């Protein structure tokens, strides 16, 4: 069995590992990387460096700004046509790769399976691509008549000076269809993260709060922010909420419909799942419309129950609370019953998680439920607040890269602002850290656990060799490298084409998949018999 954190302390000092793993870098690089690798110790949450530029030549998991904007936040909106303005590759690579699912609404529109591009050619780069973009928008409008169209800029666009905002305005007017342009050129910012921010801003400015017809009268109405419906996660979460009598107006942006997003300002509460990609939206909606937000985690049975209880606490309605408790009791019993068999085989095993900007945190709770321990974890594109909690925000100094991403100031919307709960109560709940707060990943980790930001390929190799985890959760880019070591790797971006993993039933699916993965008999067959024991030799009889 692989070493747990306790054993790790005996076997080798994490500090020594950190020194070793960074010693192969040139001095300057080593110094930089040292700030990204920290050890958690009892009662003390170390400071970590995050959201800074990846060092060239080091193979990273990170993607680009365009990936964060088109791929993560905007792409999943299913009844909107998304046009990628640029050469063909960027568009092709973001074509249905993320497994965000969408269920068409009454009008039957669903463009998720399409990949629209202006496929820029030489002449467009030389003479500008605006004309082609205009034509592409016109064609999309003529053929599909979508409710809205998005335009995403890739690297060359910003450099040749195409004014996609002007094109979007012009075409909105001409076609009568809302066209939103995102200047998410891949070289902006340091990772996907900048793209999330750009997407949040434009979505807020152009979509959210634009539809007041048919006001929603129900009391228990919420939005879920930062849930992308990978493998059907959002649907499983929705199932539990529906059972409790809580209505979700819109999810941002898994299984999202543009019409629902337009009405999202009518909710009484926002739940934030992936803090990294969507916290901007939560804040803007709070400032403009007065909707408070709560950080939740729908991963794991307990996580799901806790999240439901938070909603009940917020609405503070005895009937709702009772209903929620009843649902929790039913669902927990069913889920634990099914998980038990798997956790028997998983107890005591260790996991490492290197993924995204929130999942490396969220899944730790589920692993604990399975009797497993997370020894090392890290994010790919998170910021310090995702690691250490939002209280560090005032200390985070903007650098050249983060300054490039526009920060918009949102004022109260005079017609639509409405306090959801009395101001006093709101303040109280904020103070106790219930509303508008995120504690981050590090405080929840164990003494001795290691945290590594923006891990490189080379560091991951060393980790596996030294600490021999039973499973590493990561993405497709590392999966096969990890498995060459004989260690199973679970893709937590696309779930290895399985799922859902969120909510009560999702936890059961996850337990089953991890069990299947770790206990796959093939791992034992990697070494051939003749590698383990010397081949029998025939004796020569004299």
């Amino acid at each position, binding site marked *: 069995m692989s070493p747990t954190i306790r054993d790790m302390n005996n076997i080798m000092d994490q500090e020594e590992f950190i020194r070793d793993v960074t010693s192969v*870098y*040139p001095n300057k690089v080593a110094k930089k990387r040292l700030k990204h690798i920290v050890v958690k110790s009892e009662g003390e949450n170390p400071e970590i460096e995050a959201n800074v*530029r*990846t*060092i*060239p*030549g*080091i*193979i*990273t*998991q990170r*993607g*680009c700004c*365009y*990936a964060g904007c088109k791929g993560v936040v905007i792409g999943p909106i299913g009844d909107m046509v998304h*046009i990628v303005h*640029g*050469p*063909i*590759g*960027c568009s*092709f*690579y*973001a*074509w249905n790769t993320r497994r965000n699912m969408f269920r068409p609404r009454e009008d039957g529109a669903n463009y998720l399976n*399409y*990949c629209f*591009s*202006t*496929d*820029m050619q*030489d002449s*467009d*780069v030389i003479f500008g691509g605006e004309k082609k973009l205009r*034509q*592409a928008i016109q064609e999309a409008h003529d053929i599909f008549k979508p409710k809205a169209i998005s335009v995403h800029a*890739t*690297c*060359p666009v910003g*450099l*040749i000076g195409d004014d996609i905002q002007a094109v979007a305005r012009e075409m909105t007017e001409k076609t009568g269809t809302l066209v939103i342009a995102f200047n998410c050129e*891949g*070289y902006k*910012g340091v990772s996907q993260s900048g793209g999330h921010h750009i997407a949040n801003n434009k979505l807020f400015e152009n979509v959210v709060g634009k539809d007041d017809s048919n006001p929603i009268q129900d009391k228990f109405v919420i939005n879920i922010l930062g849930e992308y419906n990978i493998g059907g996660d959002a649907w499983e979460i929705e199932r539990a909420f529906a059972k409790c009598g809580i209505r979700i107006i819109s999810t941002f942006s898994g299984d999202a419909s543009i019409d629902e997003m337009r009405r999202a300002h009518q909710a009484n509460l926002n739940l934030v799942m992936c803090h990294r990609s969507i916290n901007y939206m939560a804040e803007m909606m709070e400032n403009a419309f007065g909707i408070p937000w709560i950080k939740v985690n729908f991963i794991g049975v307990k996580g799901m129950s806790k999240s439901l209880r938070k909603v009940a606490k917020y609405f503070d309605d005895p009937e709702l609370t009772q209903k929620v408790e009843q649902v929790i009791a039913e669902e927990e019993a069913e889920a634990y019953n099914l998980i038990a068999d798997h956790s028997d085989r998983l107890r005591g095993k260790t996991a490492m998680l290197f993924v995204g900007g929130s999942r490396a945190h969220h899944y730790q709770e589920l692993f604990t439920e399975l009797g497993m321990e997370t020894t090392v974890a890290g994010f790919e594109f998170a910021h310090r607040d995702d690691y250490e909690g939002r209280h560090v925000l005032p200390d985070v100094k903007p650098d*050249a*890269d983060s300054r490039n991403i526009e920060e918009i100031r949102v004022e109260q919307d005079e017609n639509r602002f409405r306090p959801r709960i009395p101001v006093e109560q709101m303040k109280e709940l904020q103070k106790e850290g219930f509303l508008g707060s995120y504690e981050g990943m590090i405080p929840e980790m164990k003494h001795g656990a290691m945290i590594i930001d923006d891990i490189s*390929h*080379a560091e991951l*190799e060393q980790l596996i060799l030294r600490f021999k985890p039973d499973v590493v959760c990561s993405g*497709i*880019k*590392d*999966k*096969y*490298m990890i*498995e*060459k*070591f*004989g260690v199973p790797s679970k893709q937590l971006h696309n779930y290895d084409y399985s799922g859902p993993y969120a909510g009560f039933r999702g936890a059961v699916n996850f337990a089953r998949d991890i069990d299947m993965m770790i206990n796959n008999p093939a791992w034992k067959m990697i*070494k051939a018999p003749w590698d383990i024991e010397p081949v029998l030799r025939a004796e020569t009889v004299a």
Partner: protein
Amino acid sequence: MKALAEHFVSTTNSCKLCKPLGACLAFRGIEGCVPFLHGSQGCATYMRRYIISHFREPMDIASSSLGEKSAIYGGGPNLKLGLRNLMNKYNPQIVGIATTCLTETIGDDTSRYVTEFCQEFEEFLNFHGRPELVTVSTPSYSGSYMEGFHAAVESVVAKLAKNEAVVDSVNLFPGFISPADTRYLKEILADFGLKATVLPDISETLDAPALAGYEKIPAGGARLNDIRAMGGALASVEFGRSIIGSHTPGNILLQKFHQPLYSSGTPIGLQETDRFFEILEKLSGIPTPEKHALERGRLVDSYIDGHKYVFGQKAVIYGEMDIVIGITSLLVETGMKPVLVATGSSSKNFRNAIEDVCSGILEEFPVVMEDVDFFDIASEIKSLEPNLLLGNSKGHRLSKEMDVPLIRVGFPIHDRFGGHRQFSIGYRGAQNLFDLIVNTLIQRKQDSSDIGYGYI
């Protein structure tokens, strides 16, 4: 021939991937090589993701990770730092540097940076065993991934091949074929007693065994010394009708060292393979070894046995040009009827090549479409009522909508298992494809019939 559907300016559901991806694939087929993209890191991440989803193997691509500042002031410093970090960690024998749209748009002079790098860091490079640095220009706004693939091979040959000594081997440039095909190709060459340098050679690097350990740079690939010796080889053989007559590695060797060049179609199907074996007989001076003659014989035997299931069945083929040409040839020789052949790229040879492999057998040539996307294919296909589609995974939706089975060939295949272990070339590949086609059509019949086909 039918008129083509109205052509749109926008591209909907592309039928091609971008240029540097092809270059990275080609670099992966050289021993000790790490592909390196000069541009923003996003491109490297996306391409790795795509290549890995097909091969289910690790695929490292380094990047110079340019940000906004370098986009304005040039990417030289990042490129140099990136190369140093890479060498420290990987100790490569060669780094294949491909440009991206970003660096091409800002007009970075990548080869100048590399020259400067070699001067500035002489000692450092000596310490790392003087790795080769090869650059290739791959802006995606002109050309697609196969052009990038060929351009990378060409750059490697142009930079490294010398003719300092005569070597008794042949050079083989197979284009983009599967690792399984590459292994088989080497087996054929060995059976003819030919020593050969296959470039690129992804047989091991993109299909490695489970190891219980990990090699930073996977073992295998064309050896650098063999590539260096290419100029002194007996001859070159080059696959791919689409590239004949253009700037190719074989042509470079021909011009520089007057080395004989044999161009052939990618040997898919019996007739294209026959042509390749003729070249091998000529080069080796021996007749086709019995093992392969038997394989050929069995293939023809199966063509006869399977004829009744496939005859007259209409097929649509799409994807990378040379695969499409080869598959078309195979279908035609088995009595099937390609009705539409399509590719996302274009070449002056494509239409001729298709007509060439069809002529003499097919009365009516298929519709030929170049530079198309799946939207164009879908609009064209409806009236043609095909029974079968052949191409990469991206045709899956089309197949579902039309309720016509799709046989996965080419790249990328990410909704089936083992695409990279598939045989397509030679008699063995033809056999594999033919069995697959026949069984797919039989299953179709069986599934849609009430009577049941217990024996067929």
